[in-house]
């Protein structure tokens, strides 16, 4: 058992940084309200170090709290696709040549009304993101990035047309749970057509976790900080497993 608390400058001091807005005017009363509010969240100690008016009826606070809560670090299970380190681009290509002996076909899109290609581009575009090349650059992969606002139906049709091994669904907008609706519809469509087992289904987006994706029927989900290497590694290992 390894018990941990937030660390400010001394082990176990439990110091936490907070900032928030209250719908009240700025002033002594607002600051006291902010302090009491922080204490009500279970903090043992709170100092409101800054406040400022945002509008006539809104004010902004920066506060420090001290918590006594702790967690047993050893009991934590991470919500990640794989505990193993991902292979890099060269290793993935070598893995495909050795274990699959044919090109791996991947189709991706940002589905529904979501117009943000930044996520799918980071994973698929030649250039990639943050010095991690995208799937289009992988010599042993054929990658088709259909862009944004692609209906689920169209994405599935395209995947059938190019005989895809894996389908990537990117969802950036999460307002009003639109991503859950889109992802659910995608899986339901596949199931209705009897195609769910034909493809490896990968979901991704800044607010998508592996747990959520798996719950909705995907094989895996990738959130913030995932690169093409991680997605590619999962796909090729899963394919090898399927064969």
């Amino acid at each position, binding site marked *: 058992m390894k018990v941990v608390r937030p660390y400010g400058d001394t082990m176990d001091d439990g110091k936490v940084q907070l900032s928030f807005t209250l719908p009240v005017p700025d002033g002594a009363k607002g600051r006291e309200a902010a302090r009491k509010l922080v204490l009500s969240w279970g903090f043992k100690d709170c100092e409101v170090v800054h406040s400022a008016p945002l509008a006539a009826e809104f004010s902004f606070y920066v506060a420090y709290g001290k918590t006594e809560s702790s967690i047993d670090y050893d009991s934590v299970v991470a919500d990640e696709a794989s505990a193993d380190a991902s292979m890099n681009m060269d290793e993935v290509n070598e893995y495909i040549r050795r274990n699959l002996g044919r090109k791996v076909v991947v189709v991706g899109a940002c589905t529904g009304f979501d117009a943000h290609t*930044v996520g799918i581009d980071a994973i698929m575009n030649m250039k990639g993101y943050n010095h991690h090349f995208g799937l289009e650059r992988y010599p042993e992969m054929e990658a088709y990035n259909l862009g944004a*606002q692609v209906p689920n139906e169209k994405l599935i049709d395209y995947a059938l047309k190019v005989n895809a091994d894996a389908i990537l669904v990117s969802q950036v907008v999460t307002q009003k749970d639109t991503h859950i609706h889109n992802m659910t519809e995608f899986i339901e469509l596949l199931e209705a057509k009897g195609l769910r087992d034909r493809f490896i289904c990968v979901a991704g987006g800044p607010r998508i976790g592996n747990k959520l994706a798996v719950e909705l029927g995907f094989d895996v989900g990738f959130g913030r900080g995932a690169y093409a290497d991680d997605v590619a590694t999962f796909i090729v290992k899963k394919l090898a497993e399927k064969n």
Partner: protein
Amino acid sequence: MKSKLNLPADRVAYARQLAERITAPVQDFIDGHSSVTVERATLRLAGADGASPDGVPVANLVVDRIRAADPAALEDGATLRYVNALLKTGGNERALNDRIAAGFDVTSLPLGDRAAIEAKADEIVAGTLARIKRNREFREGKLEQWKGRNNSPLLYLIVATGNIYEDVKQAAAAAEQGADVIAVIRTTAQSLLDYVPYGATTEGFGGTYATQENFRIMRAALDEVAEKQQRYIRLTNYASGLCMPEIAAMGAVERLDMMLNDSMYGILFRDINMYRTFVDQMFSRMLNSYAGVIINTGEDNYLTTSDAFEKAYTVLASQLLNERFGFRAGMPSELLGLGHAFEMDPSRKNGFMYELAEAQMAREIFPDCPLKYMPPTKHMSGDIFKGTEMNTLFNFVSKATNQGIHLLGMLTEAIHTPFMMDRYLAVDNARYVMNYIDGFYDDVEFKKDGIVVSRAHQVLGETIEFLELVERTGMFDAIEQGLFAEMKRPKDGGKGFEGLVKKGPAYYNPFEKALKRELGIVR
């Protein structure tokens, strides 16, 4: 303004000539065509307002029924039929709109005396143009009255709640915090709707529907804050998409001050048909121009989809093309808010100097344009502290190079739509930097062959090479081959192609004629 970069004037002039030659054949095509949304915009200007019980706008009902009655009939323009119906039914626009919304088909009436129709149309055109002109004069009057009270560059903030009434609260708070420009971001995918929804709306995804009623509500709210603040607050919305001319028409009538309007954004980034987009942008820009609306072009999109360092030339090339299409639609430089963005990888060595070089280059090549500068988004992570640092340098470059319109960067970009406090922190950062370095740049000159100067010369050179290639290829083929933004867009592909209309010999559009006359467009 003293040049800091010593860009060769003859090379800049040559780049402009290339843009002129590239856009000339496109303009020939535009002049021979209309589209369903150009016709609907004209109808809206003529008074076609309202919607059927199931939400189809009157302007769509008229155009769709004309097409259904005779697929070729739109060649003559839709206004003829609408004005004819006005005369024949003897009522006002409102009464006619109600009848159309209830199912009445304007093509069911035979065409009456042409001279009488044209006389009535001229009367309507004069009335609408007078209203738009009054809006323009009101804005100019307020800007004069409150001269010197806005920030420079103008601080631009976005609201995006999906609910126009919630937007109003957020916008008022943002204006009170110091924003000069409020943009109401549209609901996701509105750019792909081939109609403009009707009435006030409270449901949207990632933004709020652009409707005429929503425009009116936000305009009234911002005017109220402006009076309190004694500072004119500009209202922005988004024209680009399948309804560019209609949204421009609504903006002209409801006194919007800025509109996102790019000549190629729809083609490249929304897969809208290229011919349709070119035709639509022309009519929408004539309206923006007459209404004194500053357009914001979308060059930032080239940098978020490709590497900002390698593809810097695509920004200048697009700015030159947007400028030329703007000129062709009667726009003066003062209304051309050409875009660019601070999107280089923050880990790039000397990235700040390259950003400075490119912003300064835009300033020197387009000295009279209110350049629209976009903040870092692509490399913003969940690290809000790093995000603040990047925004600080962005603010520095923007103020130093005297940009016109400064879209404030959010520390929570890539996490969620901005909280009220995120906007406050953004304004606070910008004001701190802009005051603290106010006169700094006047004191600075760059080394003749240093990093900054060399970078600007290099990007200009690459831009000219690229424009030469586009000219040799031809604009339509260049887009089809993927020369822009690495997007291949087939000529007859994309959304909205079926809405393109070839003008017949008897094509009649009294608004187009009047706008061309007022704006001094000769061709």
